[in-house]
């Protein structure tokens, strides 16, 4: 059996030798280079685009703006079936500027250098209007009732022990190393789009509509992805720009956006403001929980972060209400970022739990264990498989939590003050529609699916599943993915890809084996499998991943130095297909969480609404030196209600809860409760 074994990535050699064909590496015959020009105001109108100097640069072929570009179709509906996009308006479709950096022109040239020089010479005249960028509040925007049970107002009012606090998370930017890129090439009515996409099937649907093309004529390819973190789930404007310019000019066009544009034009995790009201009896049993959140969004779009995604089922509490709203601002559209909703949401609720534990004079672990849910109380259905209590207990044991003394600043080591904090985590476990084709020859097989590997191990995991189902060694199984012309597969988002591909892959393998029995010895037989998704349906059981983090920080007040030293994480993520790639996901997510808790914030100028720290020197992410020692354990209980192997995805669960565990540890060390991320030096020593 290969499933469950920690084999190396099957495509690893290609990557470390530079042989993997990433999108921005692609060079086609006669290919032109496009550079989008961004607005230098955040609100107003484009009065005039003067392209004279740009067009005079040798090699510049064309300069487009809203007056002379192709009419692209804006994408109106967002649904799994119709295709999802977060910036709905097609690029260069009008003179209306709604965020800083919005594309207002596109320069096309024979070389990258000419295009860059031309782009620097495009003169844009604006009529600016007042910028809408006020801070947001948790009650702003039309309230959407997410879930409701009991009478939370009455229970909260009646309770003697309660917490009522507002938590805030800033704009965070995905910043995968690979920049977003599109290479578009037309042959007659047919276009091939080499993309950096986490969802090639969705990308194909959206671009078909935007380009006004026939569905069969649009093909999207993403063979390898230099990660995405959600930022590459939905198409962003460089894709229709490249496709339309290539169609207009009759030559392939490549656009690779800049690191600066990564902060403006391809989404971000929105700013959130979240009010949490939580109350408990003296025994620590929760009596009420209210979670009201708002996130900012673009003036023209409606991105909803859904911060209370996990709030409704993660705690046993009889009285609950969660509401959400959006606040429109002059900012690019937000988008999903690793663990959207639950990650900022669990920062708020798990922080509130820690504050409640202090109010109760109770150990925060004991408070969690007291309120572990036995069923999904939000939907009033049972869980498929929930071992969160074991996550807490095993994590506490491995961490040595029983050695913790509760008083602030009471623990020391090597002359440093220690802070210990913990938090629970959860994430959805669902499947999406998926079809798989398997071609079985004597001694080898090929698996075909329009899914993609975003760097997490999908190639390897598929090979392991097919290897077991066919009884072939992994090395004899070839995986063909990353091409929208293959049988439609799921997006790599919501930690759903792994769970989604399992049923049809096994079914296709079985079908092929069955056909093999009746086929001639040397014949290649073809098996098919398909399965319908669970995501967005009305489930009879609630399927989620769970986990717990225990975190140690050190605090050296004499030099105001705070460091995350040690993390113990226990994850209930179903059956683990490949412990090596899965561990890689959890460890990466923990480091992501260190960045979220201590460093990351995209700062906007209060006057111009321009993102300021739009580079890797000033947008601080965790460096290698900031990695804590990490001890990750998977419980490995199969969730057979989800798929025949019992596997869930693990791309996001590891990030949820980390920030709350760190801020709780910071409080334990310093006495400072930070409710507005990230934790900064000035939070700890005074402004």
């Amino acid at each position, binding site marked *: 059996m290969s499933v469950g074994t920690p084999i190396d990535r099957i495509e690893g050699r290609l990557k470390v030798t530079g042989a993997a064909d990433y999108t921005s590496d692609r060079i086609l015959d006669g290919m032109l280079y496009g550079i989008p020009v961004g607005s230098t105001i955040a609100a107003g109108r484009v009065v005039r685009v003067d392209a004279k100097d740009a067009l005079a640069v040798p090699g510049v072929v064309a300069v487009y703006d809203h007056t002379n570009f192709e009419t692209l179709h804006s994408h109106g509906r967002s649904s799994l079936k119709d295709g999802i996009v977060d910036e709905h308006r097609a690029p260069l479709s009008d003179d209306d500027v709604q965020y800083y950096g919005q594309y207002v022109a596109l320069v096309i040239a024979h070389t990258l250098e000419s295009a860059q020089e031309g782009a620097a010479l495009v003169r844009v005249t604006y009529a600016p209007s007042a910028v809408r960028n006020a801070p947001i509040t948790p009650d702003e925007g039309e309230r959407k009732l997410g879930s409701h049970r009991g009478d939370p107002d009455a229970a909260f009012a009646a309770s003697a022990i309660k917490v009522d606090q507002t938590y805030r998370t800033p704009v965070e930017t995905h910043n995968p190393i690979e920049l977003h890129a599109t290479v578009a090439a037309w042959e007659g009515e047919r276009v091939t789009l080499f993309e950096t996409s986490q969802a090639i099937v969705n990308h194909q649907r959206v671009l078909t509509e935007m380009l006004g093309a026939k569905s069969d004529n649009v093909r999207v390819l993403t063979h390898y992805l230099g990660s995405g973190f959600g930022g590459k789930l939905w198409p962003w404007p460089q894709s229709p720009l490249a496709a339309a310019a290539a169609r207009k000019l009759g030559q392939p066009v490549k656009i690779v956006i800049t690191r600066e544009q990564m902060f403006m034009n391809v989404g971000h995790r929105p700013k959130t403001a979240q009010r949490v009201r939580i109350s408990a009896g003296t025994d620590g049993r929760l009596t009420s929980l209210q979670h009201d959140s708002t996130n900012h969004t673009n003036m023209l779009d409606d991105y909803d972060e859904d911060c209370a995604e996990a709030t409704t089922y993660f705690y046993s509490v009889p009285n609950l209400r969660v509401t959400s709203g959006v606040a429109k601002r002059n900012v690019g559209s937000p988008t999903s970022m690793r663990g959207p909703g639950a990650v900022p949401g669990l920062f708020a609720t798990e922080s509130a739990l820690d504050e409640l534990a202090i109010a109760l004079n109770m150990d925060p672990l004991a408070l969690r264990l007291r309120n572990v849910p036995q069923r999904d109380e939000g939907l009033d259905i049972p869980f498929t498989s929930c071992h969160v209590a074991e996550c807490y207990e095993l994590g506490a044991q491995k961490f040595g939590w029983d050695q913790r003394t509760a008083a602030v600043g009471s623990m020391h080591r090597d002359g440093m003050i220690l802070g210990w904090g913990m938090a629970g985590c959860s994430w959805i476990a669902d499947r999406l529609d998926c079809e798989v084709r398997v071609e079985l020859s004597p001694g080898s097989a090929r698996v075909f699916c329009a899914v993609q590997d975003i760097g997490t191990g999908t190639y390897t995991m598929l090979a392991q599943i097919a290897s077991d189902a066919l009884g072939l060694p992994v090395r004899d199984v070839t995986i063909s993915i990353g091409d929208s012309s293959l049988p439609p597969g799921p997006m790599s988002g919501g930690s759903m890809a792994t769970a989604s591909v399992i049923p049809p892959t096994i079914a296709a393998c079985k079908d092929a084996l069955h056909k093999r029995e009746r086929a001639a010895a040397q014949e290649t037989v073809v098996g098919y499998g398909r399965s319908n998704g669970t995501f967005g349906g009305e489930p009879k059981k609630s399927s989620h991943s769970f986990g717990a983090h225990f975190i140690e920080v050190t605090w050296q007040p004499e030099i105001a130095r705070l*460091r995350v030293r040690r993390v113990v994480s226990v994850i209930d993520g179903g059956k683990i297909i490949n412990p090596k790639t899965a561990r890689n996901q959890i460890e990466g997510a923990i480091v992501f969480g260190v960045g979220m808790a201590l*460093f990351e914030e995209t700062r906007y100028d*209060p006057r111009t609404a321009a993102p300021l*720290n739009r580079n890797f*020197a000033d947008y*601080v992410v965790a460096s*290698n*030196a900031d990695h804590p020692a990490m001890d990750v354990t998977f419980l490995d209980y199969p969730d057979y209600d989800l798929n025949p192997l019992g596997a869930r995805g693990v791309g996001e669960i590891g990030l949820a809860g980390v920030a709350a565990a760190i801020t709780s540890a910071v409080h334990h060390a310093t006495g400072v409760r930070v409710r507005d991320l990230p934790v900064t*030096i000035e939070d700890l020593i005074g402004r």
Partner: protein
Amino acid sequence: MTRAASLDDALRAAASSQYCAGGTTLIDLMRQDVMRPERVVAINRLPLTSIDTTADGGLRIGALATNSDVAHHERVRADYRVLSEAILSGATTQIRNMATTGGNLLQRTRCIYFRDPHSACNKREPGSGCPAIAGYNRNLAVLGTSEHCIASNPSDQNVALMALGAAIDVRSVAVTRTIPIDQFYRLPGETPEIETVLEPGELIVGVTLPPMRGWRSHYLKLRDRQSYEFALASAAVAVRLDGSTLADVRIALGGVGTIPWRTPAAEAALRGATVSRDAFRAAAEIALRDARPQSENGFKIELAKRCLTQALIEVTA
């Protein structure tokens, strides 16, 4: 862009050109459209890379000696530890392999508005205004600021050189002169675009360090993350101890000044004092007494005090 074949060649080209050594600042800023030199003269193959002991036992570092070569040089590690530590606390190995001693002396600020050509900035476009004063200024200066500019000097190397009392050797076609580092940098005042006393056509050819027999030195850098980040506050300290008495002391601060910040008053307060945390903290209070916080960076005053106090504790331990 041309390459200078000899020092004379470089000096003759100087008047109308921008010198480029390692390129780690200049090329970056040219790509950002912040610096737009008409001509660039590459000097990185000139024979200015040697590191030699001087007649009096000091050290002469060629202007083109790379940051890596200096930081790992045996004598620097032995006698000028503060310089080695300062250099190694900055940037990354790759950048330090390219960056040069002379180039680093002229490193430009990390002020975000300076580095955005679409923004106003008195340093980049004199008279256009300073948006940092009412904007994003968490990483900017609290010492030596003016109403026209609050940009901080980002260098680590130069803070150490300031504490060591380095001398900067300069050449032009007509003149050869040596500038003490504490007279090299200019406060922004009303002309933040002028950062040093270098005249047009002058080229830094080397840096001379005085002999430091009997001294110990140390660099402490504080920042948000553990590596690859500019200092929020740093301290370069050198002390000569006589038992537990501070016979002599030299102090410079980084991350908090518009220039690498020497603190003669704090040094004077410590000279002859007995080693103690209280004495160090009192000196730190003196070092920061003229600090003026901006809207976001007031914490740097306390941070710099803790940094200097701890650096002195560590160097005297």
